[in-house]
């Protein structure tokens, strides 16, 4: 099981880099959807025996992160006629390289954190921190409102990876509440994105600069 678990984590990390290097917004949405599905599978391979609450939590996570949120975003994309390119501040190749460098250095640095519960920790903590940092890069280096939302999603995914360490401490209700909050926030953000597009005829957040000192 550990092997499957670790290979899933490696795939998630590879998807991070793909998301950083993708040119089209639609493919970034798909990459993050796939990442969400893989994340939902992770807790299932972590435990030998499956419990019902665990199964419910995983299925909900898969359907919200992997299906519902991507669908909401693709739907929003259809309403908004924009150039479907990401338009980053730093180019695709440099940001992918930056992502790779971050992944490498986080894994090197966290090597020193000794494990509390066996082999899992060795991978979970650095994978979580890397994904969070990649989320930040996406959030900071993209101009389009909808791409920034995707950065936020990757950030949330990173936090979700960390929560695997605490699988017994997080009750089902709390986990559901977190997913609900995530869904509602994405839903509201997409509505606002739509209004940004209507009001400014663009999704470029560089136009949101009226309010300043």
């Amino acid at each position, binding site marked *: 099981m550990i092997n499957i678990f670790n290979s899933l984590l490696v795939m998630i990390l590879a998807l991070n880099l793909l998301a950083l290097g993708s040119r089209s917004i639609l493919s970034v949405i798909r990459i993050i959807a796939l990442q969400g599905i893989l994340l939902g599978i992770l807790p299932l391979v972590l435990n030998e025996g499956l419990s019902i609450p665990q199964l419910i939590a995983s299925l909900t996570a898969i359907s919200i992160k992997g299906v519902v949120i991507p669908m909401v975003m693709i739907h929003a994309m259809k309403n908004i006629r924009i150039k479907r390119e990401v338009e980053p501040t730093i180019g695709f190749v440099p940001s992918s390289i930056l992502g790779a460098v971050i992944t490498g250095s986080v894994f090197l640095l966290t090597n020193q954190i000794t494990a509390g519960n066996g082999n899992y920790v060795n991978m979970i903590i650095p994978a979580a921190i890397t994904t969070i940092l990649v989320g930040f890069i996406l959030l900071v280096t993209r101009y389009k409102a909808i791409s920034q939302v995707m950065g936020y999603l990757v950030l949330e995914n990173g936090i979700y990876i960390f*929560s695997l360490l605490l699988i017994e*401490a997080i009750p089902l209700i709390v986990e559901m509440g*977190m997913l609900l909050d995530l869904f509602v926030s994405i839903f*509201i953000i997409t509505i*606002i994105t739509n209004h940004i597009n209507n009001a400014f005829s663009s999704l470029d*957040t560089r136009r949101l600069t009226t309010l300043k*000192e």
Partner: protein
Amino acid sequence: MVYFQVIIPIALALIALVVQSNRIRPWLVPIAGVFHFCLTLWLLFDPEQCYVNSWLILDPVGKIILFNVSLLYLICSFYAAGYLQYRQERQNKIFVACLAAFIGIFSMVCWSHNLGVMWISIEGTTLITAPLIYFNKSKKSIEATWKYLIVGSVGIALALLGTFFLAYSSLVGGADASMDFYYLLENGATLNKSWLQAAFILLLIGYGTKMGLAPMHTWKPDAYGEAPGIVGALLSGGVTSGAFLAITRIWQICNVAGETEFTSKILMGIGLFSMLTASIFMMNQRDFKRMLAYSSVEHMGILILGLSVGTTALFATFFHVIASTLTKGMLFLSSGNIHRAYASKNTRQVTGAIRRLPISGTLFLIGFLAITGTPPFAPFVSEFMILTNAFTAGHLVAGSLYILFMLIVFMGMGITVVKVVYGEAPEDAMDTPYHEGIMTTMPLVLFLLMILILGIAIPTPLTQLINEAVSFMEKPF
């Protein structure tokens, strides 16, 4: 009891979505306010109701925050009903629904003793208030809502990570991984120090973003500036108090874990930095609503500074939560009236408010005097107590900086307020349709009465409530 506090407002919010009349619908907000306040009073006098299960406990600190926000909401809710009558040109369905649901979700913040549930409810208050900022549907309000959502969501995501770190520190320390507040307090001594410190920093950044501490305050002037005055009052008194409650929780855990020195230094730094930032940006501020936002940043800084001084300043800090909330309510509501009458919030257009709106103009001026610490109002008492407590605890530099920043704020804010209140009102502002009615001025007068009474003498039940909270913070068991 908690279920009623949550369910009644949410049920009223659902009713608001069904009611068709734009005139009748706003009255659902005062109904929610009255119900909620009555239930809160009942809870204060009947301690047996305050325990539901290990997740939902209303402890003394939660009581203060719940009482504080419930009172603010009660008064604001009547203002909301009056205000929305002036804004009949706008569909208020979403606005009323969100306003009613807000107090329900907020009650969960005060009740939750599981830090995960607490996080969910604080995130909930963020989401439910976003449509409120967007009420005017102008370009500027879209921008403000966007910043509020993105900055707020990222901040609160870090708070979630901090909550996980905290649970993990318990696991590394040898106990069970748990997000239960009492469990973490009981096992405080065993928590792993480095994970706890990391958790503290993440939680402070996360909930500090919600509170609007500098340098995470960037959403605040935009959101408060563009939202209707009533929303400003609820955000600056309600949402921020909830985030402050969350920070007191982690402070308590760090205290039990013996990390007081570490947390004090950071809190003091960030508190003073917030006051500094506020005092700089308040100078030459032409937009009086943004000025109030910076004033809110300043007062959040004061609260955090009070917390950093330690147990001796806790009484003053909790009192300041109430004093500043009520004063802010008065300031935001009166600024809302002035904004409505002049259709501008820039001091180039807004002058002579005291002639155009005698009541709101006067109360805006008094609110300014009160919030900057002029006797005999309540903030004077709390601000002065925090200062003396800081000096007696030996924080001479921090205390002196505190006086300095308060002085700069007084001057900076004073210039803007004097411009708004005195002088000749421009011709075109005299014929705008807004006129002061009882619904939009009585709430202000009530706020004034309360801060005046609290400034002269703190009623015994309130002293008792705050004392209970202080001893709970010192020794939870």
